[in-house]
């Protein structure tokens, strides 16, 4: 069995299955988002809060997929070849995410206190931050992040497609050359994105660890999403013929690493702020550890870190399709809880609470995003036939 004799295009039955999923996801998504929007007419504050939170999750999965794609071009390895086309399909949803960013723009005055001139005028600290925290510059930066993400996604997709018809190292070299600057842009854009869109909800607080928290979180979200998708796809050709427990084991190890990195960054930020105990820093944690939010924080330590950590220590779990998928789905849920804990205590000071919009809006955004992902996915062979190391990556699975 060599790569050249094989077609990796999604067969008709799989394409049909994906299509029916797409229809369902789109229908559920549109209905849920419409319900959320209807609720937003009555309570716009809550709508924009829930929307921002849900949006952060899906933009995070997408950015994470692009980062993993570029990481793989730079470092090589069998793990990345088998998920490449999934990552590429995810990065092709950036134009959709740009459109979906519109509600956040409309909600600026509901979300960010610094956008109100009277608040800024009354608060000296915010007044001094106005050079950075003002609406035109905020929008300009957001436009710049999207421009970068879309351009890098475009190049990565274009050259990878070109490699299908022209196997060899020429396209590979281009992909590698764009991946270095791409990862640099990824690190910086995610850091500033986190500061702009999330940290600035409390314009008084700052943490230098914040961007890294999002980078680790997005890596984890995308890895968990990719494992789940790959396992679902591995039920039918072409993945059923090539994906083995060894590939899964590699991806499981990476997800394990992201769990640890997330915990490491989260704890580092906590330890430094706890040790400093300064009045301009500590209120951020006080808000997140009192009035019911403390239980959420504790749940994160236990179920976003400790339990998945112990489960993923086991080689048998990392090699078991169903168990690893269960852990991945669980981690996706915990990623949403983590983002909720980062965003919502600013709006619900002193008391934990959940709105019905916190359920319908993520379902709405998720449905629409998944529809776009499953629309893009079958457009290309599910494995890159022109990849130089494809045969190696597939042989790696056959032990």
């Amino acid at each position, binding site marked *: 069995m060599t790569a050249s004799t094989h077609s990796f295009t999604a067969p008709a039955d799989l394409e049909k299955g994906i299509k029916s999923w797409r229809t369902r996801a789109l229908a559920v998504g549109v209905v849920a988002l419409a319900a959320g929007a209807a609720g937003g007419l009555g309570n716009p504050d809550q709508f924009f809060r829930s929307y921002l939170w849900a949006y952060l999750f899906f933009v995070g999965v997408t950015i994470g997929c692009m980062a993993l794609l570029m990481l793989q071009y730079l470092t090589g390895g069998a793990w990345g070849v088998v998920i490449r086309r999934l990552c590429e399909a995810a990065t092709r949803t950036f134009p959709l995410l740009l459109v979906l960013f519109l509600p956040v723009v409309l909600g600026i005055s509901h979300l960010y206190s610094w956008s109100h001139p009277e608040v800024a005028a009354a608060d000296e600290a915010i007044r001094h931050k106005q050079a950075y925290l003002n609406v035109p510059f905020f929008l300009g930066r957001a436009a710049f992040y999207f421009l970068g993400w879309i351009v890098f996604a475009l190049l990565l997709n274009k050259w990878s497609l070109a490699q299908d018809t022209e196997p060899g190292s020429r396209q590979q070299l281009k992909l590698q050359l764009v991946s270095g600057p791409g990862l640099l842009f990824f690190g910086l854009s995610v850091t500033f994105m986190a500061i702009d869109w999330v940290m600035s909800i409390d314009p008084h607080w700052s943490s230098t660890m914040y961007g890294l928290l999002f980078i680790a979180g997005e890596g984890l979200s995308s890895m968990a999403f990719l494992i789940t998708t790959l396992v679902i796809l591995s039920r039918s050709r072409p993945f059923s013929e090539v994906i083995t427990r060894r590939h899964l084991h590699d991806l499981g190890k990476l997800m394990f690493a992201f769990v640890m990195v997330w915990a490491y960054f989260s*704890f580092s930020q*906590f*330890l430094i702020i*706890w*040790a400093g*105990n300064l009045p301009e820093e500590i209120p951020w944690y006080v808000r997140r550890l009192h009035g019911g939010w403390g239980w959420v924080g504790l749940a994160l330590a236990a179920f976003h870190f400790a339990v998945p950590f112990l489960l993923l*220590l086991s*080689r048998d779990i990392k090699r078991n399709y169903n168990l690893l998928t269960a852990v991945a789905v669980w981690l996706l849920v915990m990623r949403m809880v983590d983002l909720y804990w980062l965003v919502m205590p600013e709006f619900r000071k002193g008391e934990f609470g959940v709105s019905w919009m916190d359920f319908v809006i993520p379902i709405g955004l998720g449905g629409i995003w998944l529809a776009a992902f499953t629309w893009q996915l079958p457009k290309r062979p599910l494995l890159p036939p022109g990849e130089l190391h494809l045969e190696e990556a597939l042989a790696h699975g056959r*032990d």
Partner: protein
Amino acid sequence: MTKTIYGMMAEFDTPGALVNAAREARAKGYRKLDAYSPFPIEELSEALHLHKSRLPLIVLIGGILGGLTGYLMQYYVTVLYFPINVAGRPLHSWPAYIIITFEMTILFAALSAVFGLLALCGLPMPYHPVFNVPRFALASRNRFFLCIEATDPLFDRKATSDFLGTLEPREVSEVAH
């Protein structure tokens, strides 16, 4: 011929021949056998039915012990032995313990891995009978060896030697104690 021997050893030219011989010997019913090769051969562990090693368990226990040691050591120092009020915090301030606890976990786990590996391999071992076969020195260069040990219930000097002879070895030799 009453002198006891360690076992019977066959020498092969290729890794494939060695793996094949190991499989045949297992199929024949031999259990006390070991193979020697200049480089790791993945199929060999499977052919010899080398099951999961106990090393992960040793490392896990080492890590847990390290974590406990780190935490309790700090608890003892800051709460019991030398309590000082630092910035009005409780004496038992667990966030400050985490880094050392984490590092001690890593340290103990890593040391358990190294020493556990040595112990499970039976190292250091200044003497091993297989070196009594002069050509065995080639096991670290370009030859592959399979040794059926005399402690195997099926072991019989003549029969085992004949059996190894059927596997197309370069040479079959007795391993003296």
